[in-house]
Each structure stands twice: as C-alpha cells, then as structure tokens.
C-alpha cells in the first residue's frame, strides 16, 4: 500500500511513529483508525511504555513483522468516546490497553479468561484484525479498542508509571499467581533486573514473599536492595554465592530473553521448586534432567495474562502503590531510547510522553 492509502484505510485520521523496515528506525507516520464501533472504546493516548518486544518487532527479529509497524502495547490514555453497547467505560475515564486487542471469545482458553492463550488472539500491533486490516499500536495519538481488551486505571496510579504494567506488569504477575509463588514467607528469585524484573520484585514483595535478585551485574545490587526492596542479591557468576543459595528458593521468575544456562538456576530451587521463564530465548536451552528428577522440580513458561487478570493486576498495583520505575522521553527521542534499550541502559522502562510530545 502506498503511504497515502494508510490515511484512507479507516474513517478517522491518526498520527504516530512507525518502523518502515528491518532497520527498526522509527519516523512520523500518518494513518487512520476505524470508527468507534458499538463495543469500542476510543481514547486519546497520553503515554506509551517501550517494551523490549517493540524493539524485537521493529527489527523483525521474530520474523512476523509487517511494515509500516507502529509499536506500543503499554498504552494509557483518556476516553473520548464509547460505543452504544459499552458498559464498563465512560468518557473521561483513564484506561489502558496492553498486548491484545482481540480473540475468538469461544475457545476453551477464552472461556477461561485466558485470551492470551487463544489460538486466534490478535496482538495490539503488526497483526491482522477481524476486518482484515493491520493493527497499529500505542506510539500514536489515538487508540480504538474493543471494550473487552481495555482496563480501567484507578485514580491513584500515575498514568506514566502505570503504562508499563500493561505488559511488563501482567507478564510477571500472572506466573507469580499461577505457579503459587505468592504466599507470604516463600522465597522467590528474580533473574534479570530490567523492565520485567524490577516490577516482579515489587509485586513479590507486596505479596509478602522474600525476594532474591539474581543478576550478572554487581552494580545493580544497591538499587535492588535499597530502592526496590529485594531481600538479597546474587551475582550469577559468583560461584560461592550461588553455591550457598543452592536449594533455597520456592520459585524463580526468569526474565532473561538471551540464551543463558538454566542448570544453575534449577540448582537454586528447593525440592519441587519451579523455574518460570517469561523471557523467550529463541534457541532451545540445555536441560540437565537428573537435577529436575532428583528434586521433583519444574521448568515452565508464561506469557502475559488474560484480560480479567490484567485488571486484577492493575487493581493490586493500585492498592499497593506499585508502579514501574520509568524514564519519560519525548516522541522524537524514541530512536535514541531504542539504542539505549538495546544496551540495557535504562532504569527500568522508557515511557513516551505521547500527550505532550507527539506532534504532527
């Protein structure tokens, strides 16, 4: 499609920044959004978090990106219009949209509030919507989404710092609950102190869990202990430290998406402990079976969460005053931010101030 036809695809004009090719470099992009359907919620985007997935997708690292690609699935804003059949939202509400904007609503997963595992789930960007058009994400001025995939942001949560919860937050909240790693007194390890990891520490502490951060960077120790409230810090290359921690953890949330050894992590688990991967290394990892069997241990995975649980997570965050630690940037700094993100140079999420800095 020529550039002009993106503007004419749908009835209302929209503006955002898009990647045009695998370089992943983003630039201004005029496009359009559908009319507000009877079940749709339309909102003015105020902030959008930069998830590491946005970087993977902008560069087509997973092989299914469609260009032009408007990233962004940690989107918050204010409702400007609701469709006639919308029940849960009204104009003026502060709302958010995460990684999903559609699902089949009829399979076993959808019936169990697990839209994230629906074989026909529709991603917020670079996916094919019900009407055959491509979805565009939150690095844009307005969003229109089916009510089912919109969550309400409670008044006491600052919008900019709440945005990352819509992906990072639910991605770590869901496995803490599902794998029963949320009981007071338990000991949970968090591997990797980035966007996902730092929120995992906050959620786990709020659940009454003892938290050990496991990281390759000794420089993150003070932050982890003093600022995030972790109980202890393990440097994964410190053999003595790792040895002393063997068999001490009920579970580990592993947020690292690069290839890395999991055997040392399995060693840290107690008998019947659970290692849950939420980062997704592309290549298979080596699994030594003996320790898994001798300790009755588990290696599992988890991906975001369903809509009901996403709202539950936001409400839990609001009750416990949990938000992400962010660096707010202007829209036109997004490429620089992406480069810094690639090097892990951010504490701990960039959030684009769409409302104030996205200008045509």
């Amino acid at each position, binding site marked *: 499609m020529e550039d002009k036809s993106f503007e004419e695809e749908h009835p209302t004009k929209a503006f955002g920044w898009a990647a045009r090719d695998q370089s992943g470099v983003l630039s201004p992009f005029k496009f359009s959004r559908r009319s507000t359907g009877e079940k749709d919620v339309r909102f003015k985007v105020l902030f959008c978090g930069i998830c590491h997935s946005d970087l993977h997708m902008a560069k087509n690292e997973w092989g299914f990106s469609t260009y032009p690609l408007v990233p962004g699935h940690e989107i918050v804003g204010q409702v400007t219009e609701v469709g006639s059949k919308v029940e849960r939202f009204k104009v003026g509400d502060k709302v958010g949209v995460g990684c999903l904007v559609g699902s089949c609503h009829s399979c076993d997963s959808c019936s169990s509030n697990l839209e994230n595992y629906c074989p026909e789930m529709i991603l917020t960007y670079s996916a094919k919507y019900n009407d055959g058009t491509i979805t565009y994400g939150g690095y844009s001025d307005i969003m229109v989404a089916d009510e089912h995939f919109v969550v309400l942001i409670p008044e006491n949560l600052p919008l900019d710092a709440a945005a990352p919860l819509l992906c990072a937050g639910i991605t770590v909240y869901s496995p803490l609950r599902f794998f029963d790693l949320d009981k007071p007194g338990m000991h949970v390890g968090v591997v990797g102190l980035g966007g996902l990891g730092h929120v995992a520490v906050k959620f786990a502490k709020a659940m009454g869990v003892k938290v050990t951060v496991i990281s390759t960077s000794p420089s993150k120790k003070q932050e982890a202990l003093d600022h995030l409230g972790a109980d202890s810090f393990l440097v994964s290359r410190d053999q003595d430290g790792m040895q002393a921690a063997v068999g001490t953890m009920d579970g580990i949330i592993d947020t690292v998406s690069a290839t890395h050894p999991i055997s040392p992590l399995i060693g840290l688990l107690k008998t019947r402990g659970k290692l849950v991967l939420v980062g997704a290394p592309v290549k298979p*990892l080596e699994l030594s079976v003996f320790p898994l069997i001798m300790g*009755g241990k588990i290696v599992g995975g988890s991906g975001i969460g369903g809509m009901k649980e996403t709202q539950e997570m936001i409400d839990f965050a609001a009750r416990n005053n949990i938000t992400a630690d962010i660096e707010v940037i202007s829209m036109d700094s997004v490429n620089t931010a992406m480069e810094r993100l690639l090097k892990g140079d951010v504490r701990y999420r960039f959030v684009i101030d769409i409302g104030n800095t996205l200008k045509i």
Partner: protein
Amino acid sequence: MAKSPEEEHPHKAFGWAAKDTSGILSPFHFSRRDNGVEDVTIKILYCGVCHSDLHAAKNEWGFSRYPMVPGHEIVGLVTKTGSNVMKFKVDDRVGVGVMVNSCKSCEYCHQDLENYCPQMIFTYNAQNHDGTKTYGGYSDTIVVDQHFVVRIPDSMPSDGCAPLLCAGITVYSPMKYYGMTEPGKHLGIVGLGGLGHVAVKIGKAFGLKVTVISSSSRKEREALDRLGADSFLVSNDPAKMKAAFGTMDYIIDTVSAVHALAPYLSLLKTNGKLVTLGLPEKPLELPIFPLVLGRKLVGGSDVGGMKETQEMLDFCAKHNIAADVEVIQMDQINTAMERLAKSDVRYRFVIDVANSLSQSQL
C-alpha cells in the same frame, strides 16, 4: 583395614554383583547386619530388573561403586522382626523399593517425602550410616528398617508386583502430584517399556484417555488390545504427530535415552504438563517458546515416599494392576541385561530369586 564384604556384618548373604564397569554380574558372597529393633529381615522371593540396575551396573551415571549388588524391586517373606516392629510379623509378604533409609527428621521426611530427603539412602550403591555399602535385591536376604518396607496386598502375585516397587511408584507419584487423575483427560505416554506399560494401566484406572507414543509401530496391537490404551501414535510419523498437536493434557515421558522434547511439547494443550522420568546421561534440549506461548511445563519426579508407595500398591490391588513380567533364573541375568539394553522385554524381567539363586552357587 576395611573388612571384606563377607566379614563386614554378622550374617552371611549371597547374591550376584557387578564387579566393574562392564556391568557383567557374577556370584558374590557378602553379609547382612543383625536385625535391629526397627528392622525386618526378608527372605527374597523375587526381584525386578529395573533399567536403572543396568545404568548403575555399567557406571553410566558416574557414581557406581563396585562390587555392586543391584535390585530395588524386591518382594519377599519376613523371617525376623525387631522388638519395635508392630506392623509386620514373620511370614508376611512384603516389598522393598528404591530406598532403605532417610533422616526421618527433615521437612521432607515429615511430609512423607522420604524420596526427597537430602540424606535418603538408596537400596544399593549407597552408603549406610555405619559406612558400609548398601547391597540390593539380587540376593537371598535383606535387612531393612520397617519404615521402608511395604505390605504386598494379598491378591497381588509376587512376581507381577515386584516391578511396582520402582516402576509403579515412579509413574503413580507424578500422576497424583501433577493432577493426572481427572477422568476424561488425555494422557500421552512416551515409551512402552517397564514404566510405560504400568503407566498405561494406572492411567486407565484413573479414567483417563491414554495414547501410547512410540517409535515402534509393532507395539501398537499390544498397546491397544492387551494394555487397553485408547490410541497409539508413531512418533516418527510427522503427519500423525501433527494431527495430534495440542490434544493432550499431560505427557509422561519414560524414555531414558537422549531425545528431542519439542515434538512432545507440541502435543500438549495450553497449560499442558510433560513429566520426564527417564535418566539420560546427557542434557536434553528444551525449547522455551512453546512453554511461554502455551504456559506449558516440564517437570521431573523421583519415585515417591513410603506412604504413597503403599497407597500405590493398594490402588493397584484394587484395580488388578500388576506388571507384565518375564520371569528369569538368576544365572540368566546377564543375557537379560543385554536384551533389556535393546528393549527386548515385555515389559520387565523379574528374577525368581528363591528358586534359582542358591542353585547358582553350585
């Protein structure tokens, strides 16, 4: 200087042992301890040949000590009981499995999970508290702490019951722990050997739909007609495997060789669980995307505690489940081991110890 195996303990014993990493077994004279206040002395009738016996005899896992008397699927008759032993009496038919002791004081022992006690002692190739080696069931007698002895239900045949003491509990325990007991759910079983065939029987008794997944299409009739599996999937038929993608709630993987997990993970539904029970010498490759995109998990399990082992035997008795066995004489053990290495057995060898061991001394 350390005493010889024959002199180590007061009571003479005879068995067959592996003397080196060739794994070849031959007659071996040794001794058993006095029957202590907590102990039960057992005249061994039958002992199952577990694949672990083969791995251990050949030091495939790297921690074998020779001479080694294998055997941890033991059925026999009580000949003596210690003064604190209330639950057994002479002539009771009893069994001993994979463990003969644990610390009895840690959180795992307190939860009836002696199998996960850090100080658990294996029935053979391990060290007793007195520093002597444990010797297993390829022998005429064994002396065991009563806590690690189970009662064989009256209705069970001794030979068919022996393999349940390892193979049986090895599949029963994770089936309970991972919730594979909901009637109507779909269980896949990879590998139709000692573990696999018992898993089929127990799975059917739980009311599950059972699919046997095997690389040998020749096992299909057996699986369906005799063992009662509902379907059979040939794992190296890509089209059939693809048709079965996303259809199973659980998979029990009994294969002990190194093998790919990815095809089996694809067979699981969302939230599906794969429990791996075989002990390959090298690591397996674990793809992560399927785990994350489908919230699937891979778990391990190691036998079961003593309470659960008794529960398993009682369950099997109630459902008329015993292992399918080929009974052999003691002096046929080396041939049996060779056949076992080629999976040429339906589905467990069991040594008729009582009737053939003493003859092998001559």
